[in-house]
Each structure stands twice: as C-alpha cells, then as structure tokens.
C-alpha cells in the first residue's frame, strides 16, 4: 500500500481491492504447486523430520520411572537424600504397591534395564525383587522384606539413583554423552578411565577432516584431468572413478584388508623389494591409517563428481586469458582456475565430510581401536545395549556439531558458494 498515494486503494473493476484479488488469484497457483510437492513433503516429514524430532525427544525422555513407580516417586519427594539415612517405611510400602502392579504387567524388568544404564546392578535388583514380590507379606512391614530380598534396597546409592531419575525429563543422557555425571557435588566429569565420547567426537571430526582433505588432494587432479581430457578418454576415466560404486562396500573393505594387512600384498611387496625387513612390517590396517585409507577410497567419487561437474563448466579460455595477460601456468591456475573451482570443492568437501562423519561400517571393520568413530558407539547403543536415550543424545550432539561446523563453513566459504554443477 505504501507505493499508492495516501488513502487511495486500487480496486478491480467490480470494486474488489486489487491486493485481495491478486492474493486470491495467486492462492490457486500456490495450492496447486503445493499439491505437486506434497508427496515429497510428506515423505520428508515422515522419513526425516519425524525421526529427528523423535531422537531429540528420546534424548531427554524419562517417563518410565514415574509410570512404573508412581507412588514411590511421590513418596520419595519427602525423603531427604542428604540425611545419610535410607527412606522410611512409607516409601518401601509405596514401592511394594508399585512393584506389585509392575510385576503383574511385567514392566519392572524394563525399568531395571533403564536404571542399569545409570547404576550397574539395577537390572538384577529389579529382576530378583520382582520374583520375590509375590511371596512378600502384604501386611508389611516392607523395609525388612525388601532388604531381605536384596541388600541393595538398604543402600543409599540405589535410592539416590531412583530419586535422581524420577522426573519425566532427564539431562542424564546428555551428561553421559559429555562424559559427565551428576554427583552429590553437582555435575562433574567422569573419571579418566570412563571418558570415551568426547574423545570419539574429537576423533570423528578430526578423521573426517583428514579424510575430506585427502579426498580433495587425490580427487582434484583426477577431476581436472576428467574435465580437460577429450570425451573418449574422459569417459573411460570416469568409469574407473565410478568403479568403486559398483562393488559392495564389504567386498571393497575386505580387499583393503588383503592389501594392507601385515601379511598383505603391500607389505609382502615392500619386504620383497627390501624396503622394509620382514620383522618390521608396516601396520596399515586396524588403526587410523586403515580407516583413512579405506574411507578416502570409498568417498573419493563423492569428491570427484561435484568437482568434475563444476570444472566442466569452467571454460579453458579463462586460463588462456590469464596467460595472455601475463600469468604463468601456476598463477593462471591459482588465481583464475582454482577460485572458479571452489564451489565444487565446497560441495565435494561438505558431501565427503558429512558422509564420513556418519560412517561406521568401514571404521568398524578396518579401524581397530584407534580408528573407530562416534557412530560406532551410537550403533552399539542402538543395536546392542539398547540404550536408545544415550544413542539419541549422542546423535543429537553429532547433529549439533555438524550444524555448528556448517555455520562456520558458511561464514568462511559461503554456502551459496557451493554447487554441484
């Protein structure tokens, strides 16, 4: 309205305000285009957004304690944890009432495994107590009966854990993910021999960067060659570049084992030509070197393809122009060609980095102990320990770390300076 003169409202012939008419006309268009992308939108919502929201939720969700032991949770609020005394009979009575129901519904063991993540021994405590609960005297007193069932019910640590994890939401998973824990003195780092996740995060980021850089160093000349060779030979080279895609991941990884292991092809060759002695065979697998080599190989095409497609669009006349203006080969490349290939580097680097940060099969197979990633631990917690809360917290941290890195990247390179071709 600002660009019409004061008080004057443009209208259509039948007196409708022009803006309303325009909006109406455009709405149809919008709805139609919305309908077109609706399948994709629904797909993305269901397969991408929903799981991420679910993951974020799981990383703090803790309603199981309150749902399984509602009376105990309420009764425990009265208990003074600093008193040095275990709770009184009322709490035990509430616990009996809750557990009687829980055993009936067979949910007590589930709670046991949940609390076992926080304190070793809770799993068997609940399983054992669950078996005893039917034989307990309904009339009480309960404290003695519980202590008889398992002396852990008389320990402060047990009750502290129960109390600490009674709220519906917990920061416990995130603390664990940061290698921290909540103690009587507040939040502090776990002892040295239990810290693992921060180390793995750091290593994952570091190795991903190393892998990205080595992909770039190896991939750039190949992409350059691809873009400048005549079509016939560049097609052949392209097939070679794509070859790794056609073999299964496991086969490729196993091939690297055959090549890199101490009794492997490369070591045999080096010993044979006398470069190293038989006793000093190189360790190139089951460590970081193995992870870097195998993952660089696997991810190389993801670097080469965007680089190639960007380089293909850089006309050779730019380099000619630079040379005609007096630049030698290196200056022409560095000042004129290279800056124009940066969008390809950006796309390739982001692609490789993001793919490598989430990889876990290859590190698991060739990484030994020093070459595994945070994803390996996430996978372990998803499929083995079933500690999905911790896995979700680790996943969330990884997501945040990637987003932070992305923002930094955006600030330095500029996200609009990324293109796939």
């Amino acid at each position, binding site marked *: 309205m600002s660009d019409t003169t004061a008080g004057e409202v443009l209208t259509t012939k039948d007196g409708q305000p022009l803006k309303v008419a325009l909006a109406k006309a455009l709405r149809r268009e919008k709805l139609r285009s919305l309908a077109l992308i609706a399948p994709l939108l629904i797909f993305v919502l269901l397969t991408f957004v929903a799981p991420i929201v679910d993951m974020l939720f799981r990383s703090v969700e803790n309603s199981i304690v309150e749902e399984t032991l509602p009376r105990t949770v309420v009764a425990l609020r009265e208990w003074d944890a600093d008193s040095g005394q275990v709770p009184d009979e009322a709490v035990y009575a509430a616990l009996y009432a809750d557990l009687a129901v829980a055993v009936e519904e067979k949910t007590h063991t589930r709670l046991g495994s949940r609390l076992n993540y926080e304190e070793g021994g809770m799993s068997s405590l609940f399983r054992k107590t669950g078996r005893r609960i039917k034989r307990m005297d309904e009339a009480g007193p309960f404290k003695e009966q519980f202590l008889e069932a398992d002396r852990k019910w008389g320990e402060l640590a047990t009750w502290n854990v129960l109390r600490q994890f009674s709220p519906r939401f917990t920061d416990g998973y995130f603390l664990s993910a940061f290698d921290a824990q909540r103690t009587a003195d507040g939040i502090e780092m776990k002892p040295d021999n239990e810290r693992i996740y921060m180390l793995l995060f750091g290593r994952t980021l570091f190795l991903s960067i190393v892998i990205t850089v080595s992909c770039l160093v190896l991939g750039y000349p190949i992409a350059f060659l691809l873009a400048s060779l005549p079509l016939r030979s560049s097609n052949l080279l392209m097939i070679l570049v794509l070859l790794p895609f056609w073999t299964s991941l496991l086969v490729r990884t196993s091939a690297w084992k055959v090549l890199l292991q101490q009794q492997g092809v490369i070591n045999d060759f080096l010993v044979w030509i006398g470069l190293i002695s038989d006793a000093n065979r190189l360790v190139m697998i089951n460590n970081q070197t193995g992870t870097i080599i195998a993952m660089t190989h696997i991810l190389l095409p993801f670097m080469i393809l965007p680089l190639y497609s960007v380089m293909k669009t850089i006309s050779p*006349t730019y380099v000619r122009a630079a040379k005609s203006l007096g630049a030698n080969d290196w200056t022409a490349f560095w000042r004129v060609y290279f800056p124009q290939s940066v969008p390809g580097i950006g796309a390739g680097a982001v692609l490789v980095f993001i793919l490598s940060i989430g990889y876990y099969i290859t590190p698991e197979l060739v990484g030994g102990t020093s070459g595994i990633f945070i994803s390996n631990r996430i996978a372990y917690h998803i499929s083995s320990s079933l500690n999905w809360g911790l896995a979700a917290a680790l996943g969330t941290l990884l997501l945040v770390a990637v987003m932070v890195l992305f923002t930094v990247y955006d600030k330095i390179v500029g996200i609009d300076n990324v293109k796939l071709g």
Partner: protein
Amino acid sequence: MANTRGAAVKYDGVQKSYDGEALVVKNLNLDIPPGEFLTMLGPSGSGKTTCLMMLAGFEPATHGEIFLNDRPINNVPPHKRGIGMVFQNYALFPHMTVAENLAFPLQVRGVGKADQQQKVQRALEMVELGAFGNRRPAQLSGGQQQRVAVARALVFDPELVLMDEPLGALDKQLREQMQYEIKHIHENLGVTVVYVTHDQTEALTMSDRVAVFNDGVIQQLSTPDDLYEDPQNSFVAQFIGENNKLNGKVIGVQGDGCLVELDDGTQLKADRVNVSAIGDRTTLSLRPERVEFDTNTSMDNLVNGRIEELIYLGDHIRVRMNVAGNDEFIVKVRNRGEKRKLNVGETVQVGWAQNDCKALDAVA
C-alpha cells in the same frame, strides 16, 4: 598512423596441422607493420583463428616461424609474449570485480599498487566505464563486458592486441557502435591490432588491411576498398559483398580486357583478372549496384533480361532478373523517386561498364 608504438608481426612460412594428416594453415607468409589494424577474415574452418592462436602462443606452429618485432617467438610461452587479447566470450574472470580483472595483468607484472589503480582507472575511463570498477562482470550488460575485455587487453600497454571475434555475441546495433569505439581506441593508441572475424562488414569498417582466408591460405591481402573493387579471385568476390556470377568461356583477349562468351551465347567484355588465354573457362563477377537500367549505346555491355521479382528496401530497390540464363541476377536500383516504373515480367535492357565486370577463375 599518428603515433605508432605498435609491434611488427611476421609470419614466415607457417604451417599448422592438428592431426598430422591435413594442413589447417598452408604456408602462411604475412607481414604486419607496426600500428596496423589487420583483420583476418574468412569462413569458419578457414584457418584464421588458428593463425591468431599461434601468434598468441596457445597453439604451436607445426612448421615455420613467427616473429614479433623481428624476434622469433615460437619458443616463447604465451605469458611472456606481452600480447593483449580479447576473447570471443570476453573471458572476464567471474570471481573478480571489473577493477580486479583489469588489475590482474598489472599484478602479475609486479606493478606497484598506486600505479595499478591509476592505470586501471584510466583504462576504465577510456572505455567509459569509470564508475563500474566494483561491479562483477555478471552485473554488466554484454556491451559493457565487451568494453571491459578491451580495457583489460590494453591496460598493460601491450604493443600488439589480438581480438578473436570479440563482437560475435552482441546484437547488431551494439556491434556497430563497438566497431567504431574499437577503431577509435586503435587510432588513439596506435597499437598493432590483429582482428579475427567472419563478418565482412566488420572487416571492411575497421581494418587498414584485410586478409581473406580460405582453406588455410590467404586468398587476398589488401585494403577494404581494393578488396571490394578488385577481388583477385572468385572466392573473394563471392565472400566480400554481393555479387552476380556469370559463367562463360574466354573467346578473345585484348590488353587488360577480354571477350567472354556466356553459355547461352551472349558475349560480354570484362577486365581480365585471372584468366590468361582464349578458351579458359571463367566466371564473371559483377556488383549489383553497378548495373544500370538507363542504358545508352556507349556502354560496354548491353543485355536483355526479364524482371522476375521486385523487393522494395527503402533506400534502394532490389530487382531479381533472368539474364543470360541466370535467374539469380540481382540489380540494385537507387531509390531516386523520378525513376521509371519497373514491372515484373517485363523484359528490359540493362548495361554496365567493362571495368565493373571482372573475369575471374571459373567456379561451378
């Protein structure tokens, strides 16, 4: 030239082959004096661009030597030749601003910062883009980009500037305007310019001399007017301007002239350019604007023809006639108002002078 500070270029027996089977450039000998604006004109594939690229240093000569100011440059890499070049699509560096583009050749030559700025500004003003230094090439129009490209090729004061179809991407009006601007810049600076184009108008407008290329050979090297008035062979006659072709056989030779009998028996007088003896097949070349309807008996050649088609073009009328069995015979009549009326289907007499009609090598 007012102030010649251009370089002399010499091609000496230069040959070029890409595949070792066919020659793209066949034994090229060409002398370009300092300060000249020389255009290499020819259809695509005629070898003109290859000649330019050899001079720039992007293509090695297969045989022969190229000299720049009497210095052989076959083994000098392109960046040491000090030749400015304007490319077909300008090749402005998209990641640099206009000013950075212009400063680039100065930077690589180690020119001081202050000097750079001054030269860049001067070059920008020369092409009337003084205020555009901070723009990116993509933010400029085609004509502006073209000017930047010219400025960049000149900013480091080269003695020789090469231009490879620099106006090909512009529309007609802009192209004509740029032709004049480039010509003026050349006149003011006095550098040697080697210009490649397939557009004959461009070549005729701008050049001191034009080298017409075909099939890897220079067909004719002369000033624009000579090229038009005195084509040395049928190819040049066909390629430059509009041209009527009449095929026949030499039946008499007399000094510089000859008598030619056309295939339908008509006999015409023509200047003898590259026919030598009686009995030679020849193609007569005749410019459409040299044919007159107002005939008189003193004219060397008088022929009857039937008017097939009239096209009104404002400043002139284009008449297509059937003359001596050739129904593509074109006559351009100046529109003078008092002109007598021409009608399609009418048979009229047309005439022309002997020296407007050239007997050239025979073409089919």
